[in-house]
């Protein structure tokens, strides 16, 4: 069982890496600067383009806040991180990907067992579809922190008014069997 979960985590980590890699891959070929180039003319046709639109390839960089569990699993800790993305939906996925591994080994990467399938926004409602590997299920307090980390990370984007978290495409009552949450979750 343990072996299986390790494999699953590896696979899911790889999946997320490949998503964020869409942007990163361009760097050696395109501009050297890691900073956003707002105009579309630097876009190149190299692999990994998500959208057919010529401007969509322009890689943007953003400073965001990411959230992890503290050493004893009692509260959230905020850390600055940088994401690179091209499209809106890759922006949310890139933000979520920062939660999967912690920058500090003392902190808990609350979403280490999560695989994010999609993140789409429509009229302010962000729908995130995800999977949780059984190895990524926490106890009661850990689940509460995980849900808070998800909310805080995604609601920092002002355009996100409501957040609907789907578990393998379904509106479930709870992520890990202790805390229930509404569909959608409203911004506080």
């Amino acid at each position, binding site marked *: *069982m*343990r072996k299986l*979960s390790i494999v699953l985590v590896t696979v899911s980590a790889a999946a997320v890496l490949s998503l964020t890699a869409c942007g990163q891959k361009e760097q050696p070929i395109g501009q050297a600067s890691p900073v956003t180039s707002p105009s579309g003319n630097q876009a190149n046709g190299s692999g990994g383009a998500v959208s057919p639109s010529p401007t969509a390839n322009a890689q943007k960089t953003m400073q965001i806040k990411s959230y992890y*569990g503290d*050493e*004893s*699993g009692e509260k959230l800790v905020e850390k600055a991180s940088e994401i690179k993305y091209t499209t809106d939906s890759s922006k949310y996925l890139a933000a979520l990907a920062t939660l999967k591994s912690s920058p500090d080994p003392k902190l*808990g990467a609350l979403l280490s067992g999560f695989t994010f399938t999609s993140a789409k926004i429509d009229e302010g409602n962000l729908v995130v579809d995800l999977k949780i590997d*059984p*190895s990524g*299920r*926490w*106890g*009661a*307090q*850990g689940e*509460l922190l995980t849900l808070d980390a998800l909310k805080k990370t995604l609601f920092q984007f002002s355009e996100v008014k409501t957040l609907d978290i789907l578990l393998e495409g379904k509106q479930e*009552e*709870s992520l*890990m*069997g*202790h*805390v*229930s949450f509404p569909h959608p979750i409203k911004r506080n």
Partner: protein
Amino acid sequence: MKKVVSSLLALCLFLIIIPTVTHAEEKIPLYLDGKLLVPEVAPRLINENTMVPIRIISENLGAEVKWNQQELKVSIDKNNTHIDLWINKRNAQVGGKTVAMDAAPVLIAGNTLVPIRFVAETLGIKVDWDNDKRAVYVTTKPGGITPPTTPPSGGGTNPGAGGGIQLPGGSQTPPPTPSGPVIQSIKATGDEIVIQGSAALTASHFYLSSPERIVVDLPNNRLGQALNPKLGEVNGSGAIAKVRYSLYSDNPASVRVVIDLNSKVSYTVTENKTANQVIIKLKQTRYNVMIDAGHGDHDSGAVSLTGKYEKDFNLAMALKVKALLDKEPLINPILSRADDTFLELDERVAKANNAGVDVFVSIHGNKYTPNVTGTETYYWKEDSIQLANIMHRFVTQAAGLPDRKVRQNNFRVITKTNMPAVLLEIGYLSNSGDEAKMYSPAFQDRVAQGIVDGIKSFLKIQ
């Protein structure tokens, strides 16, 4: 509605159990539509503001009151008016707008007191202060009402049950004591209480839990000479801890008798019209205790360090606790799940609420990073604090793991159940030391016994 009732109950528990004989503050008579209210916690004057127990707002002004423990917030709803008040904050919110009050709500010995003038007037209810009599007059009905010819029979228990309507206002003095029927004596012997009246008695009654008590109202009666003029108590034995009585309402007169119990009982109330007596007979009955094994079936719960499932630990523990509780004559144990099946959180809540459960204990195994170890006990509602403290003491002692304290957090099964409820996180399946113990039968037996001892201690079962 059930939700409201339960949170209200939680709120009112404190109010009903504490007799108020020892308050230093001035006690303020409070008249509602001309009728003197005699709540068990007296209204009082704090910095020239009359503060009343929140129970008055719900029971007598007919508003819905909710309590949010985390925010220390009281929400009051009546018709289309919504008021939010916070303990020790002078700013209230009315329909989302901030309004300053003259006095902040306070929490005194477990009683939430709110400024009556602000709350009543915001709800469109008139409040007058008579400085000579140092009394407050609350008027819920429009003026010019003729007094009723017959007093109601329902007693003072229903909010808004047509009270004696009289012309309100400062000009009216409380009526002189009439020479109507009185309660002459209240005697508690063994498991029987006899209330002796001067005339035939009619009683209305209801039962309240945690703590267990029976409330009996005797409308149209006052307290006789032999009983303390306003309130008092008599000692009991057996299932009866004590019997308290008070003139609950002055006009129309109504006497309230509260029987504080040592254990859960079933009871009968007999009106003996020829002997002018009400006889209450008690019989000890079993407490319903729900043991909730967390997770199940496709929800494995946490996966332990060596790949074992939390759901199996929880179920093993629940079955052991059930087996021990089966030996207790005063406990009827109920399992939310007895095998590897899945229940939604709200299904667990519904099972407990529908079965009239007295105590709810949810059993879980914890998971976080490998270094974290120890036992945590969670509660959410005010009515569960005592249970949480007791359970935590017994469980940490039995488990012998580090004490990670009693904590308050809103996990579904302890927020939505309407009885004292706790969630136990026995130990960390992600910690090698905790995990090894948690899957050992000796540890499980010891902790199961700790859980049972905690439940019995809470229920005061020897």
